[in-house]
């Protein structure tokens, strides 16, 4: 975290980082959308049932949600950087 704060000190660097994180988020949306398709429509022909519930329902709803939670955790803990949102530490402002 401290490394991130040292790395993104100026306003410009922070905005660039925010742009990159926005792009990663669009990729994450793609991952969730593909999971939604595969776990729902992709399993629609399966005869497997869990507690009398067709597999596509479990996969398409709870499965998609779990994928979204995993994506949120990966983005928040591994991809996104921590830095000061105020300008106090900026050298170029």
């Amino acid at each position, binding site marked *: 975290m401290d490394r991130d704060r040292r790395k993104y000190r100026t306003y410009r660097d922070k*905005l660039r980082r925010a742009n990159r994180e926005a792009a990663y988020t669009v990729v*994450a949306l793609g991952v969730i959308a593909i999971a939604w398709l595969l776990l729902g429509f992709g399993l629609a022909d399966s005869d497997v049932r869990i*507690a009398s519930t067709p597999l596509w329902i479990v996969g398409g709803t709870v499965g998609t949600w779990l994928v979204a939670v995993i994506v949120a955790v990966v983005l928040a803990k591994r991809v996104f950087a921590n830095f000061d949102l105020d300008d106090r530490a900026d050298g170029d402002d």
Partner: protein
Amino acid sequence: MTDLIGLAPLALFLVVTLVASVIVRRRAARAGGGFVKDYFIGNRALGGFVLAMTTVATYGSVSSFVGGPGQAWEIGFGWVYMAVVQVTALVLLYGIMGKKMALIARKLDAVTVVDVVRARYGSNALANVSALVVVVFFVATMVAQFVGGAKIFEAVTGYPYLVGLTLFGIAAILFTTIGGFRGVAVTDALCGIMMIIGMVVLALGILNAGGGYENIMQTIQETAPHKLEPFSGGGMPWTLYLTQWLLVGVFTFVLPQSVVRTMGYKDTKALHNAMIVGTVVIGIMMIGMTSLGVLASGVLTEDLATYGGSVDNIIPLVTVGTLSAVLAGLAIIGPIAASISTVSSLLISASSAIVKDLYLHWCADRGRQPAERCVAASSQVITLVLGALVFALSVVPPDLIWKINMFAFGGLETAFFFVLVCGLFWKRANRTGALASMIGGVAAYCACMAAGFKVAGMHQIVIGIVVAGVLMAVGSWIGAQAKNARMDVFFPE
């Protein structure tokens, strides 16, 4: 159930939220930091949990608790599968807008989304149109929330519609007027918690009345097997899936009432935590409530005509039919909290559009600096008057209320999608493109809604967004950047 015991949980909840609102306001006043920044953006002090809950509670409206589950009762698990696309809402909002809006808002000392739009494009005309769009569509949405909440109150408690409207309408208006943005955020968090508790209570009632989960699923298999298919025997066409992905999934991250929350959190850690907590909670809420709608098929097994011919009656009926008076009183706090939290968030945003974006800017243009006491009083009076207006419009409930709600949702997305996205990420975008996009897109959307015109059966938001996108591109190509556009803040060299 016209019995006072049934009202006790709701009354207690309203008192607690009102007290919380007063405490938050007093603490904020003691902390200082300027009235406008505190009242409209909470001094940018929201932590991760409150940020997540206020966003989810603002996003999850009374439709999520009544109309949506009612549709799920009629259509089946295809509706739940469609509703789950809403789990992308917070990831997109915080991931795309979160940090950039927070950095820019701090740099500009911006308090509202319109402040940011004005600075980016250097256009007062665009800012005024944005404020007008916000107020008009927010008022429409607030009326829908009040009416929806009061109707479920009437159906479940047996008390007249006006009693419910007065009870929680006045409470919502009061704690928004008193608490400001931070008060709204805290009461939203309380509402979010109560929404989940209400849902759990209703789930227990339905499962108990239906003889358990597996029994209900077997009943559905025998009586309505199409409810277990993704296309629901034609009830869920692919065009509906596609447009719902756009309307309640992909485009929601530009809704001004959500975007303003990315200007009010305290640090990046809070944003990261909110993304995780919010995605967990929104999934529980959206999958949970719509699934309960389908599971209600195991309890309400007749056709729709038997239940009054409207899917909006399903959740009230199943609540009354499966729970005791006290538990039903607890369960209806869910939809009423959803209604209150959405109204309070929209009310504070609409009020900021009038006070901050129109009045204070008008004063600044004329070199006037109103006294802080005057700003404080006028902000609270405007909030109160707007709330009273919405209350008055809700007294005689208009027809097609759920359609008005979705209409407003689509209108806001059409108006702000390209204006915000291009404003933040496309240097070439300018005021000509932004004005054309907002006015042209909204006009095309409203005209198609009024005429009932659709392309390939898809919701009119598709037309609105395409028109808005084309006009943004053409306008930005033809026009030039305004001299007072703050490009140094948005795209520093």
